[in-house]
């Protein structure tokens, strides 16, 4: 009996690989298992190898597994590309249709089942995925009842016939597999019972979207891009329930400027994109900083530069997000520590943007945005909305022509009446301006206003700018962000050495005074990140002097770190 198994399904893009993985993983999540999935895909609609890697566990998992136990193959390429990842004695379940073969050198079992042929006999070859799932269920000794429920959820609206055919396909796969597994030790493929905790199963983009709705977003503007599109799609589906709507704009500049306009008017709006879109938005992000208009932009990082690796994992926008836009503006850059945290950090991003009247970049990465995974349920009682110094009611009459919207204050933040209010009229401009918003390029005023804006970053910003995992006291400190956090936690748990892990959530401004006790106490500080230049490492070095103790683990081949790789890298550095 096992505490974890990795099941992987592969085939040609567009032939239902995604939905096969979806049905299989959703069912196992409903049974109570913890899951972590990774999609390998390309930027094309049909064709090209794709696979869905699903790690199933009786305990929390937040990383791609080192290897695979079961590989379901709909084509030979799936075997050729993935068989080497199988554990010794691992099983390939392949469709008879393509006469599958496997390299003799590999110590794995190849079981051939007529997925397509059986599905055709039942009624349609579309159901070949159900035959494959049925076969997998037999191998893993999972009662088909669990899958029947899922089939009902998916196909009830299409009629009883369709539901029945899919059940038949599941049964057929199960029975065909039963004839082939006599010689296997089935304990190697059977999972222990799961716990009975309530669990969600979602992608990071879902958590961000749900967070945005709870933060009060009622209008969104966005332009489609991988891997951010799911956010706008979620909002399009669910905002109408709250009287809201989404505009798909002509480009990312329009999207971010609409969000700025809407926020200026007192709404809560945002946009989401990836590297190329963020590059286009840079001037507008500067406008938000200069005009002190709240703005939240989600950047789901993917492989760069240029079009780069649009469907692959990377964290190479960090420098641009922190330092991008011309001139000096106050900006906050956040990175949720995991999918569950993405919900709460999104809400905090909206609050910070409004409390401090500045742009907040909410980072994600492709693996966090699209890797479907188990999460604890979200707690509505923890949802807090803070609208800062935004003014929503008519103001008192005043002597001056314009309200002094940019009055200098101790914390750098001034009252922000929204359009429509009596006595709140003021001017807003990206040109350097007086307290009332009218242009003023004078030296003294410039200094006052610049100091006022930049002073905002001296405030206590995030409530919890990082989380500490691993050993509280140790000689080795690991620093990571986003989806890498889960891999590092798992790698560190396998090491004999004591290691402290920091999941950094407020990347900028870096909470260096709070980090200092951890940094000072470490003999080795290892920053692990998905990019070539060590961007997070550089930002740490700009803020902290102990450069000789800082090392980087870098990966930029488009695939997420695996725990065994990280274990080896850490050992290489500390030994």
């Amino acid at each position, binding site marked *: 009996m096992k505490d974890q198994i990795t099941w992987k399904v592969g085939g040609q893009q567009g032939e239902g690989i995604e939905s096969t993985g979806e049905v299989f993983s959703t069912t196992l999540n409903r049974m109570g298992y913890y899951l972590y999935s990774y999609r390998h895909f390309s930027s094309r609609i049909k064709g090209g190898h794709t696979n869905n890697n699903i790690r199933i566990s009786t305990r929390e998992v937040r990383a791609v597994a080192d290897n695979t136990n079961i590989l379901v193959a709909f084509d030979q390429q799936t075997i050729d590309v993935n068989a080497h990842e199988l554990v010794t004695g691992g099983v390939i379940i392949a469709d008879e249709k393509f006469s599958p073969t496997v390299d003799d050198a590999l110590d794995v079992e190849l079981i051939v089942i007529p997925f397509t042929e059986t599905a055709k006999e039942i009624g349609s070859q579309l159901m070949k995925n159900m035959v494959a799932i049925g076969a997998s269920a037999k191998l893993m000794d999972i009662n088909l009842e669990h899958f029947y429920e899922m089939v009902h959820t998916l196909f009830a609206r299409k009629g009883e016939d369709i539901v029945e055919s899919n059940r038949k396909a599941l049964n057929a796969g199960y029975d065909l597999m039963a004839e082939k597994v006599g010689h296997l030790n089935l304990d190697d493929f059977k999972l222990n019972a799961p716990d009975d905790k309530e669990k969600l199963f979602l992608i990071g983009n879902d958590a961000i979207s*749900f967070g945005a709705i709870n933060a009060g977003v*009622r209008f969104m503007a966005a332009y489609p891009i991988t891997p951010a599109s799911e956010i706008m799609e979620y909002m399009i589906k669910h905002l109408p329930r*709250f009287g809201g*709507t989404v505009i798909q704009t002509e480009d990312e500049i329009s999207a971010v400027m*609409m969000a700025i306009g*809407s*926020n200026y008017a007192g*709404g809560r709006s945002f946009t989401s994109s990836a590297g190329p879109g963020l590059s286009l938005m840079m001037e507008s992000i500067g406008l938000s900083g200069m005009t002190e208009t709240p703005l939240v932009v989600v950047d789901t990082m993917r492989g760069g530069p240029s079009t780069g690796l649009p469907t692959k994992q990377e964290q190479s926008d960090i420098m641009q997000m922190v330092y991008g836009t011309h001139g000096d503006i106050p900006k906050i850059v956040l990175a949720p520590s995991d999918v569950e945290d993405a919900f709460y950090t999104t809400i905090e991003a909206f609050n910070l943007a409004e409390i401090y009247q500045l742009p907040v970049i909410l980072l994600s990465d492709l693996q966090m945005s699209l890797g479907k995974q188990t999460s604890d349920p979200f707690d509505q009682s923890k949802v807090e909305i803070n609208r800062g110094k935004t003014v929503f009611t008519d103001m008192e009459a005043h002597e001056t022509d314009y309200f002094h919207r940019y009055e200098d204050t101790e914390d750098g933040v001034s009252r922000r009446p929204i359009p429509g209010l*009596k006595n709140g009229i003021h001017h807003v401009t990206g040109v350097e301006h007086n307290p009332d918003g009218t242009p003023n390029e004078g030296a003294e005023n410039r200094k006052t206003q610049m100091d006022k804006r930049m002073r905002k970053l001296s405030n206590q910003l995030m409530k919890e700018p990082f989380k500490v995992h691993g050993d509280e006291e140790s000689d080795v400190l690991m620093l990571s962000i986003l989806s890498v956090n889960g891999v590092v936690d798992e790698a560190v748990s396998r090491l004999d050495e004591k290691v402290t892990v920091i999941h950094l959530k407020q990347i900028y401004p870096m909470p260096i005074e709070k980090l200092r006790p951890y940094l000072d106490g470490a003999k080795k500080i290892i920053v692990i990140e998905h990019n070539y230049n060590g961007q997070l490492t550089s930002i740490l070095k700009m803020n902290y002097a102990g450069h000789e103790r800082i090392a980087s683990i870098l990966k930029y081949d488009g695939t997420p770190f695996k725990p065994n790789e990280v274990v080896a890298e850490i050992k290489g550095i500390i030994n």
Partner: protein
Amino acid sequence: MATFKDFRNHIKPNWCPGCGDFSIQAAIQKACAANGLEPEELALVTGIGCSGRLSGYIKSYGFHSTHGRSLPVAQGIKMANQELTVIASGGDGDGFAIGMGHTIHALKRNIDITYIVMDNQIYGLTKGQTSPTSDAGFVTKTTPDGAKENPIAPLKAAMASGATFIAQSLSSDIKGLTAIIQEALNHKGFSFVNVFSPCVTYNKINTYDWYKENIVDIADLEDYDNADRAIVSKYLEEHNGMLKGIVYQDKEAKSYAEHIESYNDTNNVHETPEVSENDFKELMASFK
């Protein structure tokens, strides 16, 4: 009730004496007052250029944005609060060069805002370079041998982009322009008003007199019908776009917001936007 004086502030415009923009400013102030608006009910968004300064010269909520991007900001404001009157404004460089993509899409999207372009066929603030509406052969600092490109035809482009309100006038005709802006503000949908606003410093060709001589008032065209697309297109072609008046209007078209059944709230700005316990639970259940 507010008069046009209530739309004035303490700022003295930095436009050159004789600039066409002064009259456009006055026409907007008069039209707003005539339509019964209060200054706080108006949000005026501008881009960059001489014309971009307008947001600071009219007493209302003013937002001076970035070059070419007044329309997205204006549309965002309207989507947040349908109760506000929103005017976007800028020059020909702002709207037909760097911002042309936004212009076309704002025309087709038909959100209920008004876009006033101050078209002087030259880049003024950067001191005299060719503009997207400069005529072929026009000599400027950047086209010393005369402009080699054909000019953009804003009205024809608007027709082709699904516009529901297209008007054009001269800054010198304050009365006529005021009436047009009043109608533009009343139009349910996106209203586009192109105003020829002579640059007295850098454009010695397209002068006040030149525009008066070359523009044709649609009132003087006997069979003109501004609801008939074929007639509008015919005359735009015949007069090379130089028509004056409300050149085209589709009074039946629904505005963007009217297309969205769920978007029935006229003011979608809520101080404490809430998600009910039931909605929270239902949406969370979809993640299982």
